[in-house]
């Protein structure tokens, strides 16, 4: 194919060829649309994780039935269901909050400030909550596998146990790091967009985040404690059941 032929094909494309709405937008509209899209992405992330958590819930209930009579496994399942309930509530509330702040009557600045304040405040909580799904899928999955293949919890050697624990930890931290990077990128964009629109809007957002910091820190500390304690308890019970 000759150079001219390639260029002729390329030149067949005109501005409207790709038919798309953003052609006559103002700067504010573009920023506002992009922020809306960030909000939708965070919502989709939470919705997908809620589906994953539902699967995990079903798996935990199946294990309760399968292993009825095996005390350690019942403890794991009940603990898992409790942990799942707490994390699901956090995600559900975050999702509701995200829906609440999408008021079409707000100006671009107000909408941006609201999205940034909300995402920045809640980021840590749902990063942990989403990452926890890895363990909540891995452990019940492993138990179902044992039941289907061996009909019981198979005792594990120290090395097998270490391998499984390491895999679960890698999955959880990997997922946490990935979500954190994504959220950080979104926050960075909102930060730039807000500072570009108006410095005072950015200041307002920071003040709002600062005012809520104490309240947020208490919740975050409780969740961190719950996750660490839950994980140690899980290891201890699993060790006793599988070891």
């Amino acid at each position, binding site marked *: *194919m000759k*150079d001219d032929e*390639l*260029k002729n*094909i*390329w*030149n*067949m*494309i*005109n*501005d*409207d*060829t*790709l*038919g*798309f*709405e*953003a*052609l*006559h*937008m*103002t*700067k*504010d509209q*573009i*920023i506002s*649309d*992009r922020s809306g*899209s960030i909000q939708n992405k965070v919502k989709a992330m939470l919705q997908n994780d809620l589906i994953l958590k539902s699967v995990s819930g079903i798996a935990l209930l199946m294990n309760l039935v399968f292993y009825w009579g095996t005390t350690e496994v019942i403890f794991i399942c009940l603990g898992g269901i409790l942990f799942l309930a707490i994390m699901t509530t956090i995600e559900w509330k975050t999702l509701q909050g995200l829906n609440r702040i999408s008021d079409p009557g707000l100006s671009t600045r107000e909408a941006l400030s609201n999205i940034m304040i909300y995402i920045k405040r809640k980021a840590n909580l749902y990063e942990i909550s989403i990452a926890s799904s890895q363990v909540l899928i891995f452990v019940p999955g492993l138990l179902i596998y044992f039941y289907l293949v061996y009909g019981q919890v198979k005792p594990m050697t120290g090395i097998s146990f270490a391998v499984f624990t390491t895999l679960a930890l890698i999955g959880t931290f990997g997922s946490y790091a990935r979500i954190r990077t994504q959220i950080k*990128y979104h926050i960075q*964009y909102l930060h*730039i*967009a807000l500072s*570009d629109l108006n410095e005072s809007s950015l200041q307002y957002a920071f003040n709002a985040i600062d005012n809520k910091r104490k309240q947020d820190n208490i919740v975050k500390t409780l969740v961190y404690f719950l996750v660490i304690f839950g994980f140690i308890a899980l290891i201890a019970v699993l060790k006793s059941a599988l070891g």
Partner: protein
Amino acid sequence: MKCDKNTFAEILEKHRGIIHKVSMLYTSNKEDQEDLFQDICFQICRSYNTFRDEAQFSTWLYRVALNTAISQVRKNKSKTASETFYENIHYASMKNNEGDGQVQHLFKAISRLNRIDKALILLWLEEKSYEEIADILGISKSNVSVKLVRIKRKLSETINGLKK
């Protein structure tokens, strides 16, 4: 120089075509395409004060658009465009309806290139000189020339393969 509403509207009016093409080539679906379009517009406006009169405006604009697109692709872990994405191009408004398939083939062939090669061929198709391409992408003129020969050959082979 500050990018106020009027300047922004003017830039968008004059250069939307190229921003559009860049966002189309570097994304895998309509939603990402719109996001990238908005990001590029936003970056252009933000970086507007770094534009120096000694450079040609379009050269600067291509640089900002491509850098934004390339860094987005890197952040999104190089989601490559699915070829079916290009089948949804609206052809009704094309200058020449006979070229529908040809444009699809060209887009599909370009989608198979890596992100730097995409930038190179895009600039060449947009009639940029070798000097300008080298300036925009920060590579030597001879490198542009060598790479373009290889990319054009690859494009031709792919398009011919798609035609069969």
